[in-house]
């Protein structure tokens, strides 16, 4: 077990347990926030695993998760908008902490690897992860009222 896999274990265990606790307890607003944070928790772990196993092709999983995770959250934001109308769920401290975690992992992997196409791919994944997370959080907090309801 090298350091990358150890980091992935700690990250996945801590953030996964926190997200599981949040998604199973509390009011719907809290559950949706925890579901949104799942993407930010698992995607950096997948990147760390790809580096730990020494298989660059595993990075594709993180790319797909960074693309589809916010889509899943937007589904809930759209179809649960009646339940979420009362208390607009927002946890900006948590959102920025998750974004900082993703950015830290991407920067660490970029420094560890050789510069080239892999670095560009990592940066694209990081931008997708953080951008998608911010858009999904804003949608949950009621930032796009024009498309809510239905």
């Amino acid at each position: 077990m090298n350091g990358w896999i150890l980091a992935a274990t700690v990250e996945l265990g801590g953030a996964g347990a926190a997200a599981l606790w949040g998604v199973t307890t509390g009011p719907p607003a809290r559950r949706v926030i925890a579901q949104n944070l799942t993407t930010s928790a698992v995607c950096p772990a997948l990147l760390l695993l790809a580096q730990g196993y020494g298989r660059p092709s595993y990075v594709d999983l993180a790319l797909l998760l960074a693309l589809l995770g916010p889509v899943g959250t937007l589904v809930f934001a759209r179809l649960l908008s009646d339940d979420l109308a009362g208390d607009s769920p927002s946890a900006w401290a948590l959102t920025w902490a998750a974004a900082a975690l993703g950015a830290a992992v991407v920067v660490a992997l970029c420094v560890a690897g050789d510069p080239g196409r892999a670095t560009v791919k990592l940066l694209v994944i990081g931008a997708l992860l953080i951008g998608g997370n911010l858009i999904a959080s804003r949608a949950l907090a009621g930032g796009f009222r024009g498309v809510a309801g239905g």
Partner: protein
Amino acid sequence: MSDALTVVVLVLVAAAATAAVAQRDPARQALVLSFLGVLLAALFTVLQAPDVGLSQLAVGSALTPLLIMLSVRKVRRRGRSKEGPE
């Protein structure tokens, strides 16, 4: 020693699956199910099956919750229209 990662992910998957069964409201079940789908993809990656993980990710993170939430909304609307205007 690298079994620690497998054990951590397996415990998380077992806990999430149990929690998904234990929820009462279908909408909340869909939320836990989406979390479980992402965790399963991580488990498949840890077990060195990233191709299975890719398809699990595509199905579990967005498609299954979308189908469940659409069905829940349709059922709720039908129940509301049968009871008459409220």
